């Protein structure tokens, strides 16, 4: 679907006309990211992060396919094959560092993309499906990132694999058999490494597929915008190309500069030195933490230290960690305010920033050692996280008096210019 004033694809070249009547792929591109897709005229730079996420996925797939040409998924040689990539393969260091830091860049832009959605209420009707599919992509990304981190078969890889599959061991009765089944053994070994490699190669393509659904679902109502007011007339929109291709192109340039700084000047800044020690099932590193993008969830996992009623602390932590993400699937129905954008929701806005600080605190605690005061802080922050979505948000939606909305996107833009 598109707005009735969308530009039509009219190929002039006879070859393109011939192609259009047989395989209308250029028409598809024109309508998806070309002049045929009208987009609100007031999008700010926060609307860059969808395209940047796509670019990050492309970088991961390209570098990943190349790494798979040189990597060997066998417990005996996996670590050495990664060192072989670093030392022997032409530009191997660049490709591996690009892949490792590309994962971090991917999560940075995806978190900003989610942040945008949370602030501007992009998850609300009629875009719930866009939000839900986005969360599916996020879950797939986390699984992919975790399995990828296991592949170098260093100490953090090995113990990461052990701890994360241990999460499933918390399930009552069937937990241990499930963990054994996941690993194909009693501890991470060849079987686990091989299946993780296989799935790590597969899942990015699944992600790419879900992204197509995500964009498809987005293009039914069209993009949201910073005012949260729906598009009403042709005046409210501009064609995606050249307006947003240029804006996204600029954002891509900035993204690549940041990526290059990380890649060329601090390639190990976000990694752990312990992962340069080969996997040793007989000794756990003193301080094991996941990669930074898992820290907030890791803090929630560790926040549960005592059994509650008949539920063991281990199970509580695992349930809370999964719940903290699954909760987001309910968000479109927890936030009942008809106003989308945080700009026009004074009370929501305050609590929104508290939530952001809360998640940052959780992230900090997740990266810190499992000792006081971090455990106590994690517990409070985790409690607040759930309270925000389950208690504060529904109440705020009820009692808040939103600021007056502009009559249209064009009105908002023009009044801003007049000021």
């Amino acid at each position, binding site marked *: 679907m598109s707005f009735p004033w969308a530009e039509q694809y009219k190929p002039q070249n006879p070859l393109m006309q011939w192609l259009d009547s047989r395989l209308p792929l250029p028409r598809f591109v024109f309508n998806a990211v070309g002049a045929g897709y009208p987009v609100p005229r007031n999008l700010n730079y926060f609307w860059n992060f969808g395209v940047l996420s796509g670019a990050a996925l492309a970088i991961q797939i390209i570098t990943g396919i*190349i790494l798979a040409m040189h990597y060997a998924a066998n417990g005996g040689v996996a670590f050495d094959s990664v060192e072989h990539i670093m030392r*022997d*393969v032409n530009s*191997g260091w660049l490709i591996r560092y690009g892949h490792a830091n590309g994962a971090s860049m991917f999560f940075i832009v995806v978190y900003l993309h989610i942040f945008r959605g949370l602030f501007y209420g992009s998850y609300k009707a009629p875009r719930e499906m866009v939000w839900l599919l986005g969360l599916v992509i996020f879950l797939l990304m986390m699984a992919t990132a975790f399995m990828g981190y296991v592949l170098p078969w260093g100490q953090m890889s090995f113990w990461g694999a052990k701890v994360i599959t241990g999460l499933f061991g918390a399930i009552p009765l069937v937990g241990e058999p499930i963990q054994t089944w996941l690993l194909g053994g009693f501890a991470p070994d060849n079987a686990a490494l091989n299946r993780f490699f296989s799935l790590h190669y597969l899942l990015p393509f699944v992600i790419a597929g879900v992204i197509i659904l995500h964009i498809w679902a987005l293009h039914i109502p069209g993009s949201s915008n910073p005012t949260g007011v729906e598009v009403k007339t042709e005046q409210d929109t501009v064609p995606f190309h050249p307006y947003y291709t240029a804006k996204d192109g600029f954002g891509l340039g900035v993204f690549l500069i940041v990526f290059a700084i990380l890649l060329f000047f601090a390639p190990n800044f976000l990694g752990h030195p312990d992962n340069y020690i080969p996997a040793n099932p007989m000794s756990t590193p003193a301080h094991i933490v996941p990669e930074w993008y898992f820290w907030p969830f890791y803090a929630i996992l560790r926040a549960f230290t005592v059994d509650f009623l008949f539920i063991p602390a281990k199970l509580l932590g695992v349930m809370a960690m999964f719940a903290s993400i699954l909760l987001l699937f309910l968000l479109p129905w927890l936030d009942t305010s008809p106003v989308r954008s945080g700009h026009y929701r004074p009370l929501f806005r305050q609590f929104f920033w508290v939530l952001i600080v809360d998640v940052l605190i959780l992230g900090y605690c997740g990266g810190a050692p499992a000792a006081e005061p971090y455990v106590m802080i994690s517990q409070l922050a985790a409690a607040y996280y759930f309270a925000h979505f389950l208690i504060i948000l529904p109440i705020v939606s009820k009692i808040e008096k939103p600021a007056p909305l502009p009559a249209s996107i064009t009105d908002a833009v023009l009044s801003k210019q007049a000021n």
Partner: protein
Amino acid sequence: MATLEQSAENAGINEAGVRRRDFINIAAVSFAGVGAGTALIPLVNQMNPSADVLAMASIEVDISAIQPGQAIKTMWRKQPMFIRNLTAAEIAAAEKVDVATLRDPQTLEERTKEGKRNWLITKGVCTHLGCVPLGAGEGEVKGEFGGYFCPCHGSYYDTAARIRKGPAPKNLEVPEYSFTSDTVVQIG
């Protein structure tokens, strides 16, 4: 007039009718193209032999135990190498051939080192489609020209490992090598 001039200035249109925006557009897209092209170089180059493969690219072989009439097979760059100690009769047979009649004209002199005429060192890879010819091992068929015979498609090589009959286009390749002493040869 004044307003017209001003608006033309704002749009950045110069005398030739080129807009400022056109220039920026072309410059930006060209720069991005150069960047993408540059990024392609390592992505393509990574498929070339890696440092560990190149490190094994030259070997030393002790040839002191090879008697006249004998040959050994060794491995160089993951391919078989034939090192053959020619007998006087084999040398004579190779030198008797009229080079002009050959498919790949080369003399035995050109295919061996000065003063080491009896040491024929070639790749054991048929120049037709890459099989390993027979004739280096004890008791293997040497073919009707007494050198090597490739059983895959029937190429016959003579005692200087030159192609004499069959589909192969070239003589067996002589690698770059040198004698580091009377009994040690370095290949590659």
